[in-house]
């Protein structure tokens, strides 16, 4: 199993370590609920160094990324990022990712479990790309580490960690001056690091991408300055419950090579109007003619065990049949009820359609609800 440069810190903090996507990562330090609520009310600090970083540069980088990814990178000014997907010709998802336009190059932040698959896919696409000699791909995942600082109080202390002005990216005097999805280079102990106003929790927050050898000092500094604002280290368990409450997809659950962004409800990130790109024909067809399955959010309506991935979803009534499968599910720490995401035929996808979730052979009532389950305050 791979370890991040923060492994020793996780051990010192008493983190409970589990395997995730080939990495040994903390699932929690104290309790998932404590850490989840710290992020909703105050602030949480996550190690996301397991995620991958791929740098794309060269005169044809923009054209190549617009061919390989679903969103339109031409919308990005230097210092901006966007959520996007990388699809096969069939529309099936290779990965979902963030792309940042830095100065002269693009930075792709990809899922830990997909680093090799993404790098191989992008290399293959590049070899077929007409201007392939004008694009350079560099997988810098091993040399690069990252942390996420998330929660409504993070903006109160982030500027004490990184000194401005920004030396690249969005022109900003300090990290808290960044707008959502903006990214800038600031300095930490005289070393340049990238700070973006992004995250995976549904709260305000920042992500910091830095050389692997810098990240332990950055973590300690953030912990020290965030303490008075209630900052807690938070593990993958809270990361998962937080993202489920706001219905953000997790690769391997909501997304895989047999599922398209349209089926997953991510059509907003598929720029059909930008011209040809890998997967466009299938995605355009689905957008025009509909899909065979749709991702729905549902809540358990009676007292029941929480829904879990792979539990069968049933329709209700005399024609009751197995119509789909849960892909993510948990007890929501913010709402105090079982919540889940699953794929069903489109005629069962409209709120408030009644469903039943099969839990250990017994069926419990559930209701399709609008996404997301939770919206940040203010």
């Amino acid at each position: 199993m791979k370890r991040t440069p923060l492994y020793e810190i996780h051990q010192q903090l008493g983190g409970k370590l589990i395997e995730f996507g080939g990495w040994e990562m903390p699932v929690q330090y104290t309790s998932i609920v404590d850490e989840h609520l710290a992020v909703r009310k105050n602030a949480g600090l996550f190690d996301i160094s397991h995620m991958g970083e791929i740098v794309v540069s060269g005169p044809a980088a923009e054209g190549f990324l617009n061919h390989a990814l679903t969103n339109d990178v031409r919308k990005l000014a230097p210092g901006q990022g966007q959520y996007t997907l990388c699809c096969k010709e069939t529309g099936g998802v290779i990965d979902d990712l963030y792309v940042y336009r830095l100065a002269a190059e693009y930075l792709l932040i990809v899922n830990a479990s997909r680093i090799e698959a993404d790098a191989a896919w992008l290399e293959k696409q590049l070899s077929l790309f007409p201007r392939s000699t004008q694009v350079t791909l560099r997988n810098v995942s091993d040399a690069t580490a990252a942390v996420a600082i998330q929660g409504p109080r993070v903006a109160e202390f982030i500027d004490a960690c990184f000194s401005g002005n920004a030396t690249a990216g969005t022109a900003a005097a300090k990290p808290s001056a960044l707008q959502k999805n903006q990214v800038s280079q600031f300095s930490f102990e005289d070393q340049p690091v990238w700070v973006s106003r992004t995250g995976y929790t549904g709260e305000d927050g920042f992500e910091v991408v830095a050389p692997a050898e810098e990240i332990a000092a950055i973590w300690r500094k953030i912990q020290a300055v965030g303490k008075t604002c209630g900052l807690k280290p938070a593990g993958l368990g809270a990361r998962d419950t937080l993202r489920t409450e706001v219905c953000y997809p997790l690769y391997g659950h909501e997304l895989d090579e047999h599922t398209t962004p349209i089926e997953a409800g991510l059509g907003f990130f598929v720029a059909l109007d930008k011209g040809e790109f890998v997967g466009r024909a299938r995605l355009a067809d689905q957008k025009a003619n509909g899909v065979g399955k749709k991702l729905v959010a549902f809540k358990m309506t009676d007292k029941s065990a929480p829904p879990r991935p792979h539990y069968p979803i049933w329709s209700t009534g005399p024609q009751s049949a197995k119509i789909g499968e849960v892909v993510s599910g948990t007890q929501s720490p913010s709402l105090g009820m079982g919540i889940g995401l699953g794929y069903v035929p489109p005629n069962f996808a409209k709120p408030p359609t009644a469903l039943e979730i099969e839990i250990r052979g017994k069926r419990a009532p559930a209701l399709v609800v609008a996404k997301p389950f939770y919206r940040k305050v203010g």
Partner: protein
Amino acid sequence: MANVPADLKYAKSHEWARIQGSEATVGITDHAQHELTDVVFVELPPVGRKLKAGESCAVVESVKTASDIYSPLGGEVTAVNKAVVDNPALVNSEPYSGGWFYRIKLSNPSEANDLLSPEQYLQQIGG
């Protein structure tokens, strides 16, 4: 450090049994609740169900996972703890008192000899 009361017997799978005459009360250990954290749901066997020692008979769900509970002793279920069904957090806060699971009338009290002593259980969990 985990709390392992001296007056209980323990199963390797982290259940405890408080044996009183021909009856026993069953729950899960402080170590087990600490590993699970944030118990959000408990499913108990119905009163009257006959259990074999080692049989899967209850489920505890934390935020992250569902875990099977195995009966440390064989017998017939005579009572279940409705309070812990209504308030699963009792498993975390009072694993040996308010967080008990069920009571059984023992079919073979000598099975208790197969369970771990407090010292043996402490050793198992590295306490």
